[in-house]
């Protein structure tokens, strides 16, 4: 393993740093974690995330100082296998799952993870959104046989949800060029409600359809009302929408009700309309990858054989920009970025950017040969 380590300041982009460290084998030291805060050091959800990483790896060395403001992380080998984890409810399962999606194909054994906690909250991408947008994207990179299933739904703040995630291992990722997103052929979605009237989901569907029907007739939004022990500990509802193109690009948007006892309650009608508008904004941004999965796609592009790979993206999100910087730090990967302005007579949304890179020649050394 590479001997050099990297140093960072502050707790932002915590997951990116630890995930890239694990994949590249480079040690990382994060200092000044909330050092000026009234409540300094790592939070519970970050500690929970570290424990999850510890579960899927073997030989990882983690040192945290007494106040929790300094973290030293020396990655071990990605083992995978069957993992169960109670995710801290300060953040939703999406927070943990996003990192797991990045690591899962490069394990020694296929990963079968059971994650418990909050499945949907307004802060992080929900499990539904990842299921509808990240999973099809991973399939494009040759990772078939993925499963992401919501066994129990748990809304913030109580949680009580359960998610099953299985992912096969790959030695290398296949070559893809995501240059042409294609035209949107249909819109799908899921409106869910737990511990509230099932009518909420129908109201969400009606209001969202009201806006989206102006563009395309093929819209189907499933309603999902989980009951009994599958409904978690807190009430709530939400909507995830996804636009699917002819070339298999999935652009997603979502809205989740504010957690019980936090902030103003929202009407399902307003939320449905807002979610539809978010989806339109996502379509306006466009590209072959939606804004929630830009980092995942760029990471996969980096971890490929040494050939050219291209992807058309919409505007880069701040999180993605930081990912690009981290990819340079950990893998010496510098992307070529060409802005593409749409011509005047085209009505295809805003400016795009073509990302090009030559893969780092990464192979999954942990995968056992058969």
């Amino acid at each position, binding site marked *: 393993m590479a001997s050099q380590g990297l140093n960072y*300041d502050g707790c932002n*982009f915590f997951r990116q740093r630890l995930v890239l460290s694990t994949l590249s084998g480079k040690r990382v030291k994060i200092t*000044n974690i909330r050092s000026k805060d009234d409540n300094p050091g790592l939070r519970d959800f970050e500690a929970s995330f570290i424990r999850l990483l510890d579960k899927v790896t073997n030989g990882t060395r983690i040192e945290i100082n007494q106040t929790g403001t300094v973290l030293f992380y020396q990655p071990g080998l990605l083992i995978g296998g069957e993992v169960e984890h109670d995710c801290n409810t300060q953040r939703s399962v999406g927070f943990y799952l996003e990192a797991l999606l990045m690591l899962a194909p490069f394990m020694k054994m296929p990963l079968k993870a059971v994650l418990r906690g909050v499945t949907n909250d307004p802060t992080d991408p929900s499990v539904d959104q990842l299921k509808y947008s990240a999973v099809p994207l991973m399939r494009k990179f040759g990772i078939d046989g993925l499963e992401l299933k919501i066994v129990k739904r748990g809304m913030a703040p109580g949680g009580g949800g359960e998610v099953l995630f299985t992912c096969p291992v790959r030695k290398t990722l296949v070559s893809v060029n995501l240059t042409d997103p294609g035209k949107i*052929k249909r819109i799908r979605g899921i409106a869910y409600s737990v511990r509230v009237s099932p009518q909420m989901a129908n109201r969400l569907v009606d209001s969202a359809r009201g806006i989206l029907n*102006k*563009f395309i007739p093929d819209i189907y939004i499933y309603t999902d009302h989980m009951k009994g022990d599958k409904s978690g500990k807190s009430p709530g509802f939400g909507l995830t929408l996804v636009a699917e193109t002819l070339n298999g690009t999935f652009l997603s948007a979502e809205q989740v009700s504010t957690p019980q006892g936090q902030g103003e309650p929202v009407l399902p009608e307003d939320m449905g309309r807002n979610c539809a508008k978010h989806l339109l904004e996502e379509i306006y941004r*466009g590209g072959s990858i939606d804004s929630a999965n830009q980092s995942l796609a760029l990471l996969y592009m980096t971890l490929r054989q040494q050939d050219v790979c291209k992807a058309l993206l919409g505007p880069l999100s701040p999180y993605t920009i930081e990912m690009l*910087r981290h990819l340079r730090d950990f893998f010496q990967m510098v992307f070529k970025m060409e*802005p593409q302005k749409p011509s005047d007579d085209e009505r295809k949304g805003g400016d795009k950017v073509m990302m090009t890179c030559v893969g780092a020649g990464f192979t999954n050394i942990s995968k056992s040969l058969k």
Partner: protein
Amino acid sequence: PDKEENKSNALSKMEDDESAEFCSESEGALRWKEGLQQKASEAFLRQQRSTPNLRKLVYGTVAEDDSDGEDGEELGGLFRVSRPEKGKKHRADGMDCSRFDPDGAHDWELEEMFDSIRDCFVTGKWEDDQ
């Protein structure tokens, strides 16, 4: 090498003669050829100005100002007021979240906005080759 130089000189001379001849023959018709290099560099610079330099934005070094009042806030020459700083530190300890919410710059109540994405759908206009 001398021989080659002579040869190339002769060649360039020949070209010069030829081009001079050519120019005199069709005066004005080949004006566009003049200062091609300069024109190209101008066009390049124009493009550079109009498109935001993404490479610089992403990989460029960010000027960090460390002068956000660390010193000069001492109490009695012994204690230092420690408060979470707004700028740089705030970002370093920001929330680790991948969400990229719309900034509200586009009003999706307006018909013009709807028109701006019409062709993203199969119901919109198709290119000739499809």
